[in-house]
């Protein structure tokens, strides 16, 4: 379904965000990508969606090469790939329903569309998407009047209304409180399984990832360092993903000798 081979991304400022990442995602898999901030998780998702140019390597979606697409092909790709944003990025002045309908724009071109016309077929799909995430009663609310959790659900509805082949979620619950994170994640994984859409979720909270996904992929320093089921994720694997530079840091701290090693570690972990 999705094949990523030796993807390397170097930003124009010289930062090497991904060194060599390879993975294969089968259809109907819900996969969590975990890793420290700056590990390259977001970059990877943006590469799959064509929003970030790849320096080398290949990404194949359904056998189609993503990295060398023309603008027109990329538009087609964008239509087939639903993207769920951390900061929701709903158009604030449009209603929730209209925001979900924007997910149908790729299917609905033409002059009438500029006047806000969507065929009843398109509207039906949008309505069902809203219903799926339980936001139908907020359909006519302006998006900027919704609460964080509601916005994220509408965001999910927008992505699934695209009837995507692949769902990408970039930190979908990072801006939500723990309780909401839990419900939104469960909704997201439930819908992904019901739709049978392979889903990649970038996520910080390992517990959430373990509870709601079939497979975890750990990225550190631009490489895949872990790939397995939630049960396989043991302390050693966690250390590889999150504390790969433990000795280095301990040495640095020992040399400065001013601060308690454990507090530093805690601070670091929190920021992760």
């Amino acid at each position, binding site marked *: 379904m999705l094949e990523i081979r030796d993807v390397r991304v170097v930003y124009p400022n010289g930062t090497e965000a991904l060194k060599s990442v390879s993975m294969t995602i089968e259809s109907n898999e819900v996969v969590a990508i975990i890793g420290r901030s700056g590990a390259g998780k977001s970059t990877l998702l943006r590469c799959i969606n064509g929003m970030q140019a790849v320096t080398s390597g290949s990404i194949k979606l359904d056998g189609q090469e993503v990295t060398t697409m023309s603008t027109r092909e990329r*538009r087609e790709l964008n239509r087939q790939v639903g993207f769920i944003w951390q900061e929701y990025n709903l*158009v604030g002045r449009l209603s929730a329903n209209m925001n979900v309908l924007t997910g149908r*724009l790729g299917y609905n071109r033409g002059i009438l569309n500029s006047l806000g016309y969507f065929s009843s077929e398109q*509207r039906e799909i949008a*309505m069902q998407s809203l219903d799926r995430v339980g936001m139908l009663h907020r*359909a006519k609310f302006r998006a900027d009047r919704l609460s964080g959790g509601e916005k994220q659900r509408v965001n999910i509805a927008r992505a699934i209304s*695209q009837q995507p082949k692949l769902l990408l979620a970039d930190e979908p619950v990072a801006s939500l409180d723990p309780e909401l994170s839990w419900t939104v994640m469960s909704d997201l994984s439930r819908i992904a399984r019901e739709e049978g859409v392979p889903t990649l979720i970038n996520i910080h909270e390992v517990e959430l990832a373990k509870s709601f996904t079939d497979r975890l992929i750990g990225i550190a320093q631009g490489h895949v360092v872990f790939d397995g089921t939630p049960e396989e994720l043991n302390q050693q694997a966690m250390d590889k993903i999150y504390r790969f530079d433990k000795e280095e840091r301990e040495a640095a701290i020992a040399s400065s000798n001013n601060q308690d090693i454990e507090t530093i570690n805690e601070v670091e972990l929190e920021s992760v």
Partner: protein
Amino acid sequence: MLTQNKKQKVKQEELVQIRKDILRPFPKLSPRSLVTAIIVIALLGWSIDGTEASPQELARGIPTLVDFVIRLMPPEFEYAPGTETAMHIPSFETRSISVVDKADRARKASDSDIANLSQDQTLIYVLRLTGSSDSQIITPEEAQQYLPFGIEPATAEEVVMASEAIEAARAEADAAGEVMDFDGARVFYALRETPEDSITIIRRDQAVDYNADDVDLLVPYLVDNGYELVVEEVEGEEVVMVQFFVHTLNPYIAEAGQEIVLDGFDESVMIVQEGQQSIYTVPYYPGERVFAKRYILERGEILFGYPVILDSIIETAQIAIIGTLFSILLSIPFGLLAARNTTPHPIVYQVVRLFLNLVRSIPTLIYALIMVSAVGLGPFAGVLAIVVGSVGGLGRLFAESFEQVDPNQVAAVRATGAGGVQTFNFAVLPQAFPLLTTYTLITFEGNVRDSAILGIVGAGGVGFIIQKYASLFQLQRLMGAVIILAIMTTIIDRFSAYIRNRII
């Protein structure tokens, strides 16, 4: 338990209603929005009608405009001594092609006429009809009768001078290979307004703009009656002759009580009553209707009242409305090209920015002067001046609005596979809308003030009347007009503040 069920039922009904609403292919139109739309359309239609804004008018004006712009080039920055004489007969400059042949015949007629003049006679007026060999000379005393108050007859030397200038213009046109058409031209006049003025020769078909039919009607009269105007008697009714002097000196005969539409500019009125004539120089507003009888009854003085001021104030508002409308239509593409995040290329961005800045740096009144020469006097010239005068500022403000848009929301819509236009419609426009409205309304308020002054150069609106009152020392009327203008401006400002609050 029961209440809970009830609550759930209400919720279910609500959901059914929402479902119904959002499944409608087009958003539901409330009666209120329909009424608003109808009012807006009616207002725009009324304004377009009032300002005579039409594509034909514009199409007709464009060649003149291009010609005007070409004449502006190259710009001259130094004062050249000796150019005054050339400047002295500007009418030939601008009218050379149409005047030439007519004037040529005039010269031929004049030559013999001038030769036959006795020493103490002065040639003041030459009138000739095409198709007849008659050319008649009248004395200053006779001519004075036809000349507006304050206008002196031309001297023989001036006629000769004018003829020479015409000859030169004709030779120039011949050399340039111009073909000239003289059909329909019959009467021409030579006259001057003040001793300092040059002679102006105007062909009859150029006078068409003023009162072509009247000229046709009157000329046989003049000929048959030895150039004397006849006051007719019609069934006991007092008959009045109202004489209009435009530059063409075409008198108009009106019956008492007849409605006359004054369509000229800088007209004077002469009222002849029972052989006695009195001349009133009054400002007219083009399109004003006067009743011959009324003025005689009211001591011959023409009342120039508030209805006219109101009309012109309304026209001022109409100019501002239509000018702003077209300005918006132009500013959206300019704004898109001049916004960093929507421009197709940085070079386009720089060029459009520069262009908008240049356009903005010239005051609206200057544009009005240009437009008056392009499409003629009247409110349509004012509309064009307002459009060009405000598009520089509004285009830039629109660009700023587009730049304020949250790029993440735009990226999110683009990431659904939307095309460029769709992304603009569903991500950029909704976000920029409040700012666009605010800037448009502010520009509109400015345009109302601008359009009030355009009349000074003849581009319609209340400025024309204010200027006339000021130059005639009709200061109380001037004050009246200014107060009405202030009231209108305040009302419009209030109204736009109301809309702004509603939208944001």
